């Protein structure tokens, strides 16, 4: 595996669409379910805005994991989801080339009431990050 990530770099970035995933995260809050505090949610109109280098820069800056929470096929911008999926494929290629564990970037669809799916995603990513950190220490 590529460069191990450091313990202090355990922050997870969530890019959440304002029409689906972001209110979904609010719904988790309303239910007072807890999830790791290293999860940071940024509200975006459409994640198709971010170029490939944005993701790579985030990893370089020390972000441990990124979850792109889109609206999936229900995306209000026709064609955006497919453009995004294609772009992330290219990011994966570069990550492989740079020996960054590709599991650190995930594309998923979360809707306004997907509480359980949201928790699954952030917990899984957190577990992965913790595993990679302990591997890094080892």
């Amino acid at each position, binding site marked *: 595996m590529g460069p191990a990530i450091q313990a202090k770099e355990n922050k997870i970035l969530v890019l959440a669409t304002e029409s689906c995933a972001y209110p979904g995260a609010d719904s988790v809050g309303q239910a007072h379910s807890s999830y790791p505090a290293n999860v940071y949610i940024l509200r975006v109109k459409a994640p198709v805005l971010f170029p490939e280098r944005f993701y790579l820069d985030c990893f370089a800056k020390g972000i441990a994991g990124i979850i792109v929470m889109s*609206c999936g096929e*229900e995306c209000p911008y026709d064609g955006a989801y497919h453009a995004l999926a294609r772009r992330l494929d290219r990011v994966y290629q570069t990550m492989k080339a740079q020996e960054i564990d590709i599991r650190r970037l995930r594309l998923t669809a979360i*809707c306004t*009431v997907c*509480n359980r799916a949201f928790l699954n995603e952030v917990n899984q990513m957190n577990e992965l990050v913790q595993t990679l950190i302990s591997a890094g220490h080892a």
Partner: protein
Amino acid sequence: MDDNLNRNVDAIVIGGGIAGLQAALDLADQGFSVAVIEKDASVGGKMIRLSKVFPTLDCASCITTPKMAAAAHHERITLYTYCDLKSLQRVDGSVRADVIQRPRYVDAQKCIGCRKCEFTCPVMVADQEQGGFSPTKAIAIPFSNAIPQIAVLDPEHCMLCGRCERVCPTQAVDYFQKPRPFTVTARTAVITTGFEMTGMTDKPQYGRGTIPNLIDALQMERLLAPHGPYNRVLRPSDGKAPDSIAYIQCAGSRDISMGLSYCSRVCCMYAIKQAMLLSGSLPLADITIYYMDIRAFGKGYEQFFQNAQAMGINFVRAKVAAVEAGPDGSVRLHYEAQDGEGVTTSDHDLAVLSLGLIPAWHPDGICTLATGTDRFIEVLRPKLAPVQTSMAGVFTAGAASGPKDIVDTITEAGNAAMAAGRYLAAQPGSTPRPAETRADIEATVHIDG
């Protein structure tokens, strides 16, 4: 908001479900001021309580919440929730609605929706918003995506222990709140009072509500919703994941013996939709839909039905004649298999009654609106003016004038807003107020309780 709830607006919309919200938005976007009178504590109607919607399988909340929020934030829309319409009359060319806001026992202006009261309340009550399957508290926010986010105290179950009052950070709990009568005057009204489901006990042959694992379709919506009571589909009696599920179509429609001769129009599609969602969450389960005619008439509906068949959902042409409790919590169905088997019984782990739709509201004693023999609001010219009621300047849309699916409801709401707009435009001295800037429109949240 001032203490006085009275308003003078261009249009009153009775009912804040999807039809009412769409009509209100389309009226307000034309420049008219609108008051929405809703009987529940939240707007959103039946649609916000659904899991996913056919034929696109969009999440119902994701489609409804934007419209709820848009109406709540619209400069020209005032939402009145938890209100009963006492009378609706034409007075000197205008329409007057006398309304009583029921007490929430929580000050709508002070409540910040934090749910501290709900977490503190010691009284558990069955949460009807979750099909009665899970508990809520005697003081609670109605449901997670309710608008407005204001707690409601249930006086039936509250034991006045005072804990909610003590814990509330804004002193919003008010055990002495009184019903608040007020009057909204307008020049036109749109009736969007929607539907209710027929009762589980309406057809005596279906067990009179005593069969443990026989549920209604709205309960199944909650079981299927991502934020439902169990987070997955389990049968209520023993928490078993059902291996075999039956849908009983026309359980409250097309049945003169129940006093309902009409087709409820949405049950075929919602059953197929639920069956598809079930086969997603319980891939090994057998799902059977017992039907007389599949009525997949809308855009994309027939293909949806064909997909369901391709997915392996069983369609049996039979009207289920009787239902009884079977062994081990199962539900036993009696029907005539028409493919040569003849009279047949089949046992299923869980069965769903595809109940029919009946009007949620009747104008008796409130206004002079004419209704049809089906008790839905009569439209005088169903062809050229399908939203025109028997009262001048009063229009209707959605399931108030007969069962309708969401797509047809939203389109009809648009037409009701058009008809009401035309009526307003034809009134002397009527010009819609020019919009200020978009920022204004977005910036004001009009929620009067």
